[in-house]
Each structure stands twice: as C-alpha cells, then as structure tokens.
C-alpha cells in the first residue's frame, strides 16, 4: 500500500479537525478526498506530508511511519499545496525554481538541469521556462507547482486543490498530466467533475469523519442519482457550515 491510515486524528484545542480517519491508497491509484470547506482535507494532507503531528492514530506512507521516519516519507512524496503565494520566488524564472527544488530533493547534481527541463516540459511550460514567475498566469503558476512536485519521481503525489481558480483549458491540461503520470495520487478537491473524471476511488469526509467511500460509479448507483454533486450533497447536507 502507498498510504495506509489507521484512525488518524487531529484536534486543535477543543475542535476536532480530523476524527479517526481510516483509508488507503494502492500503487498507481488516484484517490479523491472530498468534503465541504473545513471538513479536514488539508489537515489530513498536512499530517501525511509530515508537516503536522497527528493527535491520535497512525499512518504509513510508502511503508514509512509518518511519526517515526518523516524523512523517508518526505523522500517518497511530492506535495502541491492548496495555497502557496508565489511571492517568495516571483523574481526567479520557472526553470530556476525547478532547478533549486531539484537540488533540494537531492537529484544528483549533474542531472538537475535535465530533470528540471523534463518536468517543465511535462506540464507544457518549456516555452515559458525562462520567464520570471512574476509574469506567469495563475494557471501557469499551478502547473509550475505541479511540475516541481514531480522532480524526484515521487511514489505518491499529494495534490491539495490543484486546479483551484484555473480556467477550463488549464484544468483539462492539469488532469491530462495527472492521468499520464501513473503514480499514486491523493487529490483533495471541491470540484465534483474533477473527482468524477480523475479519481479511481473517493472518500467523502465531513467534520473530519468518513461519510462515504467507493468508486464514483458505486457512489452514484448506491443513491440512484446521476451526478457526484447529488452524492456529495446527500452525504454532507445542504446547509453551508
């Protein structure tokens, strides 16, 4: 298994953000993590990415315990965050950012340039590689983030809302890349069409707890509805929290 969590939980003071979450991801599988705002998607991901200690339960990523061997976990994952303002590298070109991060992922020195060019090409940024990130559109910035998550050929790609704010073309572009990668993906998203098209299996959570899990087809069939939106609303309610 690429990811195996066992009753993974996290509290912030009184508030329980993630409550005894158990799920798994098999090699090559694309698993969607769905849930309303504040459901605990990002918190779950931050625990798996070793940025946030779990309050209870355990998880193994690529066979490594997130608590006991965080460095091995970090070596096996590529993490594309929900929101990272590109301000900190506005003045770098896409290529420079990719090369710097390749070095940080310990890509052998003589392979750094080559690998950076490869991932930029993969997301269709070759033409803009030597432009400052400052001049990138929002979609290009997201694609750059995605490219940088692939530098060290991770076994698991963690994507937190990778197409937030993108136009239809860019979203299809990103989906195309994700599908052709062949690596296991954990995808948190609020876009049901994205989940429907891309994911092999879905886990819907609400208030940090699993409320439904299965393939998109299974979930729709079980409720006799046509769209994933309906599945989602049936499981998580219609009120805005």
């Amino acid at each position, binding site marked *: 298994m690429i990811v195996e969590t066992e009753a993974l939980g996290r509290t912030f003071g009184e508030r329980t953000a993630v409550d005894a979450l158990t799920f798994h991801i098999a090699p090559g599988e694309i698993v969607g993590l769905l849930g309303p705002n504040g459901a605990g998607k990002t918190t779950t991901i931050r625990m798996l990415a070793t940025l946030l200690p779990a309050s209870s339960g355990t998880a193994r990523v690529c066979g490594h315990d997130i608590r006991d061997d965080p460095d091995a976990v970090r070596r096996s994952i590529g993490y594309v965050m929900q929101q990272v303002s590109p301000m*900190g590298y506005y003045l770098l070109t896409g290529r420079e950012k990719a090369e710097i991060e390749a070095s940080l992922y310990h890509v052998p020195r003589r392979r750094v340039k080559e690998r950076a060019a490869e991932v930029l090409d993969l997301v269709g940024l070759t033409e803009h590689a030597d432009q400052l990130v400052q001049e990138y559109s929002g979609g290009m910035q997201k694609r750059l983030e995605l490219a940088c998550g692939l530098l060290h050929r991770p076994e698991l790609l963690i994507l937190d809302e990778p197409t937030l704010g993108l136009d239809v073309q860019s979203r299809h572009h990103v989906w195309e890349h994700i599908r052709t990668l062949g690596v296991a993906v954990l995808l948190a998203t609020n876009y049901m069409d994205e989940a429907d098209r891309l994911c092999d299996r879905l886990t819907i959570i609400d208030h940090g707890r699993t409320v439904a899990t299965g393939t998109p087809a299974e979930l729709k069939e079980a409720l006799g509805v046509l769209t994933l939106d309906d599945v989602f609303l049936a499981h998580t309610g219609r009120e805005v929290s």
Partner: protein
Amino acid sequence: MTQEVLALTRRWVIILFRERLNLLFSVLQPAVWLVFFAGGLSGAVVIDDYIAFALPGVIAFTVVGNSVTAAMPLLFDKETGYLDKLLSMPIRRGSILLSRFVFQVGMNSAQVIVILLIALPLGVRPATGVPGVIGILVTTALLTLAITSAALALACAAPSHGTFFAITGFATLPLLFMSNAFVPVDSMPAWMEPIARANPLTYAIEAMRLLVMEGWGGGVPVALGVLGVASGALLGVGVWQFARQTGQRVA
C-alpha cells in the same frame, strides 16, 4: 547538506541581483552614513581623526541593518506558506538557517569591503593593513551571526510581520546608539556606560576600532572573545525558536 545550502543560497543570490534598486541603495547607504556621521560630526567632536574613529561605527550600522533584514525572507516564507513547502522536502532543517547565514555573511563582507574602499580617499587606512582587514571581516562575520540569529528568532516567534517590524524598528536604533559607535565608552554619561558594556555591538566596534586605529593588541582577542560568546548564545536562541516554529529538531 552542502547541495541543500547551495541551492537555498542560490535563490537569495538570484533575487538579490534581480532587485537592482534594492542592491544599489544598500551599497550606497554606508557611503551616506560615512559622509553624514564622520564628515558632519567631525567638526563637533574633539577626537583626532574622527573619520577613522567613526568608521567601525558605520560598519556596525550597516552590518546590523543588513542582518536585521536578513530575517525577512524567512518571515515571508512563513507567511506565504513556502516554508511549509520547504519543510515537506527531505532537507535538514538546519540548511534553511545555514543558507541565511552563508548568504548574509557573504553579502555583509562584500559591503564592508566597499565601505573600506570608500574610506580610503577619506584618508582612512587600517593600521593593521591587509591582515587587519581580514580581522575586520571576521569581526563582522561574528556580528552578522549574532544579529541574524536574533532577527531569525524574532521572525519565528512573531505572530506576524507587523510585530516583527514593530519590534526591530523599536530596538535597532537604541542598540546602535547605546554602543560606542560614535562616542567612546569612557566619555559616556554614567547611566549609559553599563548598557554600552552589555551591548555585544560595543565589542565588535572595539575590535574593529583597535584594528583600524592602533594595531593587534590584547584588546582585540578579548573583544572578539566576548563577541563570539554573545554570537554563540544568540545562535542558540535562533536555533531554538526555529525548532519550535517548525516542530522539529534542527539537526
């Protein structure tokens, strides 16, 4: 670890040279200090060769100013979330700190050399010659370590960049003026003297002043020793705060 530090430092160097105006102003700043303090005040003070006397103060001003801003990238990485991205990578936590020190020591050394060059036509030549210049660079490296550590600690502990700027704005000028930068400790008012003696800056300036005006004497190693201890202590605080911020041991 070397690869990590080099990669992180490369980011700072690229950004430095892309921000040309910023670079220009930071290089010009000490020239302004030198003319303003040294040139302007020399008539009002009864010290022979006041420019030579004030030069270490100007160097200290510059190094302190630069080193305080050295924490800004960390501050912004923390707020933009890029620090989290870095922390999700398999890098040593210490590399993030070390790259700041490497960059800042390099940058400050270059700037000190520029200041010494500007001082040449003003008639200031370090009494200890080239070895003395190296001594000055060692002193400023220690001072950089001290102030950068303190600023990094503050950047980690501060809840927002507003707090960071409020505190550094509040502390920097008193730190500079409560030292022997422009007045010898002996001629200070009595209440100020103990403060100046407790200020690590005083020892950095003391060492540099001896190197510029007199020579290698017993005073230089003593001043450097005190400065070294202060730098070590502040480095400890910086590492501790960074470890607290990132929830990790800094290996």
